[in-house]
């Protein structure tokens, strides 16, 4: 099932399927290591539409909700 990264529950895992948004945005995510085919796990949601903390490889990354709405995940 394909969903947005921001729809994944806390502690759940998924594989990155697609990145939406502009080329610059996609590149920014990829160069930090958040790429298609990577497994991500939701670490925490900050309240009041705050950022998500996700785990990719050995990294923890904080990412805003709007950005997380441009990342399509296969659960």
């Amino acid at each position: 099932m394909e969903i947005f990264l921001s729809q994944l529950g806390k502690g759940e895992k998924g594989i990155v399927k697609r990145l939406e948004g502009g080329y610059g945005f996609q590149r920014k995510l990829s160069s930090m290591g958040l790429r298609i085919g990577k497994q991500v796990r939701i670490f925490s949601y900050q309240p009041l539409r705050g950022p998500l903390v996700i785990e990719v490889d050995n990294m923890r990354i904080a990412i805003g909700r709007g950005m997380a709405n441009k990342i399509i995940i296969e659960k």
Partner: protein
Amino acid sequence: MGNPNVGKSAIFSRLTGTDVIISNYSGTTVEFKKGSMLFEGKPAEIIDVPGTYSLDPTNKAEEVAVEMLEQGDLVINIVDSTNLERNLNLTFQLMEKDIPMVIALNLSDEAKHIGIDIDVKKLEELLNVPIIPTVGVTGEGIKKLVSKLPKAKNPKTKKHSDKERWNKTGNIIKQVQKTKHRHHTFLERLSDASVNPITGIPIAILILLFSFAIIRFIGEGLINYIFNPMFNLYTPIAMKISAFLPNFIHDILIGTLIDGKIDYTQSMGLLTTGLYVPIAMILPYIFAFYLILGFLEDFGYLPRLAVLIDNVMHKIGLHGFAIIPMLLGLGCNVPGALATRILESKREKFIAATLMAICVPCMAQMAMVFGLLGKYGIKGLGIVFLTLFVVWTILGLILNKTIKGISPEIFMEIPPYRIPYFKALLKKLWMRTRSFITTGIPYVLLGVFIVNILYSSGIISFIGKITAPVIVTILGLPKEAVGSLIIGFLRKDVAVGMLLPLGLTLKQLIIASVVLTMYFPCVATFAVLVKELGIKDMLKSAFVMIISTLIVGGLLNLVLPF
């Protein structure tokens, strides 16, 4: 060159012996820094640059890195062993440039510790570039790195598309890296707890309160038990000097005697107040503040605070990472202003720099405010800091609404917690304290000197008369307080000190402390802000400063009931 937070500055410092600030978060280094070392018997210039994830820069700091690359004859590529994939991707981008390279496989101790095993020999063969495992902070592998520099080479890689590059990286990782599964350590559990809102927010409040308490405890302890006794020993010597001096020189060196005695906070002489203020009133707090800040930086707490506070910061047009310039600004506004470079858009930089310059008092100024208002208990200090915080919030909301454009969202790596390396922590503390001693103290002395000239020449009473409508009518301060506003452009700490002899009431002290923080940055911060924002935006920012100072100062004068 290398990704952010991989230890470039640590290795640079090891190679060149140059002092640079090293911390555990992305974006510590925002400027390039030059140093030199001996290379095959000749001096060679080494340049430390900000970290970048790719050669397409997304902020000012990354731009600096990419620009400097073009000037290099050789690249020391610092690779984070715990995150090989992403780092190799940048490595391939670097290889496509025609510059010889050696690789320092840094953080190799941490990689081992978390169960990552890298076959260095194999990686060296595959990349066809010399590779040396290193631990930057302890200096492990640095000698070997230097010995390999002459063997630096570029294997002439053709230009790849992003996809080809990632595939190539993936293939290499499969061949050289093995990871073992292992249990979570205590630090990792603590790390989890500090970004989880339910536990993270109480932890953040606890850490901030605790930090504040320790800073005051250490600061006051040093003043009461070390520096005050020291100056008590010095007093008889200064009195002897006082007896010998002719009037004119006496006024400048010793200042006014109060009841026939030296009063270190009021005499205003170079050898009395000029020494006492920076050494016995400010230095202890500078030391205490940077001890705590350094620990939090090296431990890796700041990015977590940025995540927790992100949603609040969005309301004022910033994202969580902007808390870092604010915190650095609490030490000194200059590094705070420089740190706005980690923010992507011009809008964010403007908001962050303006809010910091207006509402964040530096430690030197705060130490003086503590000295001035401390005896009134929590009432005086509480109102000053609460006012600044409220102004910060309201001004932020207004700027966010009135300045065109939107601010990007947070996108930031959270480094693992690391136990600070004690020697590195002490070195950083010493560098920052030394910077106050060598640049702060001379300026304080200069400030005290100028104060004397301005008073004795009658300039202050002249300007006082002209500005009386604003100073007296709106702000409710005596007209002599204008001298403090003039000196505040040079040094805010001296400016606060100048309030003491004026015999102000608590209400006037509160207003003066707030006004001195807000009205304009000191000259050092001003220079950095002009450079970072451009003269046009700086003028806009200055306009905001002056207007909001008059409004806030005037309101306090009307509202405060005592």
